[in-house]
């Protein structure tokens, strides 16, 4: 039997109420829903209203149960369309992100955007909840960072950079450089700091992310490269 659900999501402080029309129906022969789970089908849209291809999408169950492993998820196709085949029955948040394009995972507190809350979706076993729309928040500026030895200026390949909220260092995300030894840091809207660690080097910490971003703007305006180089001194 076809079930129609109207879910009204009102955002605190927002002037717009978002209305999602979601339909839960049995899976069709073309949709493979994992046994014991349900499906979620929908689209991801960028802030300009266009569908976003190759975004990662996942569902987080709101069931007060332990979780270890991979959140059920998938990627969007060239039309921004996604299908999650193994969502847990019950209520789920649906998140989307595409870091290479400047859209971070909004479930990480430092990137949470109250103006674009994730849709809450009810999943039923063996059925597919369709019409789920995920709107991405504002695109973040990207800082390109290199970490080098202060004396030799050679890249330090085993450095890590940690980003954390200025008022709460217990929340943090640490990353390794890419294959070229570069870091890409997405600049959150709220105040944030960076810490740089590398074995055998003195730690660089409490670097103001927005001040670094401003310095890049000055560099670019002066015709210089759009990147930041952090020098680490060897530990004594």
């Amino acid at each position, binding site marked *: 039997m076809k079930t129609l659900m109207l879910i009204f999501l009102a955002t605190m402080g927002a002037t717009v109420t978002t209305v999602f029309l979601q339909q839960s129906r049995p899976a069709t022969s073309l949709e493979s829903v994992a046994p014991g789970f349900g499906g979620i089908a929908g689209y991801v849209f960028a802030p300009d209203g266009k569908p976003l291809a190759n975004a990662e999408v996942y569902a987080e169950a709101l069931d*007060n*149960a332990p979780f270890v492993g991979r959140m059920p998820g998938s990627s969007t196709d060239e039309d921004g369309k996604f299908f999650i085949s193994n969502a847990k029955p019950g209520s789920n948040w649906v998140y989307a992100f595409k870091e290479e394009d400047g859209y971070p995972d909004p479930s990480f507190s430092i990137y949470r955007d109250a103006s674009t809350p994730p849709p809450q979706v009810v999943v039923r076993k063996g059925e597919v909840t369709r019409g789920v729309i995920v709107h991405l928040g504002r695109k973040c500026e990207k800082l390109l960072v290199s970490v080098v030895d202060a004396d030799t200026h050679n890249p330090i390949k085993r450095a890590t950079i*940690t980003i954390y909220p200025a008022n709460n260092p217990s929340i943090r995300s640490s990353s*390794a450089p890419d294959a070229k030894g570069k870091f890409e840091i997405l600049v959150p809207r709220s105040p944030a700091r960076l810490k740089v660690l590398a074995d055998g080097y003195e730690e660089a910490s409490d670097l103001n992310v927005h001040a670094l971003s401003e310095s890049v703007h000055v560099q670019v305006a002066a015709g210089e490269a759009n990147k930041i180089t952090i020098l680490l001194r060897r530990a004594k």
Partner: protein
Amino acid sequence: MVTFRSENSSVATIDSSGVGTAVAEGTTNLHASWEIQYLTLDGGDACVPRHDTTDCSASCEVSAFVPHHLKILSDTVDYPNCQDTIRRNLRYQVVDVNSNPYPGQCLGCLKTKEKFTNMVNNTCAGGNPSPSGCSDTTGGDGRFPDTLTVGVCSGVATCGFSMTQEYQWCPPGGSPVTLGKSQTTVRRNEVIVAGNSTNVPTNLAGKFLYPDGTVKDN
């Protein structure tokens, strides 16, 4: 009928329907050959086979990537849903024996799954976690996330569970192969993976996790 063969089956094999499978690191050629049979109209409406045929063949060079262990790309600690319950998220990438990342860009080409053993029961509410089955790595380049949380906002701060956690590659038609193993403890106030606790300032980003449970810099 099309016939398939591999020049070096110790690097890659190909079955009778043309599906190639990597066996070990290396490069080889996969060949396909077939015969074209010609038909001619016999003056009426019937087609009759001619006596001549043409032999055709094609080949392609393939480089085999065999998943071996895991690189940890990022390590995130957060309290997203309640103030006192930690959630740790590790983002892995599948690499070969030389720590080269999976080069593919095709969705659905590389699947992984979890395996839990030696489970010490969850002392928070909600029971024990269940491992996921084989599913695609995201982004087409062998990356996948691992989220760890007790998932509840109440209970004593040290409630939780522990286990041996394995990540396995699901080769097509073969048995799962362990890529990384960790002794994992998940509590409301701490998550320990391969000996690294969220309560210390170090993290696992940039490290490599091996099938025997060791963590190395390369």
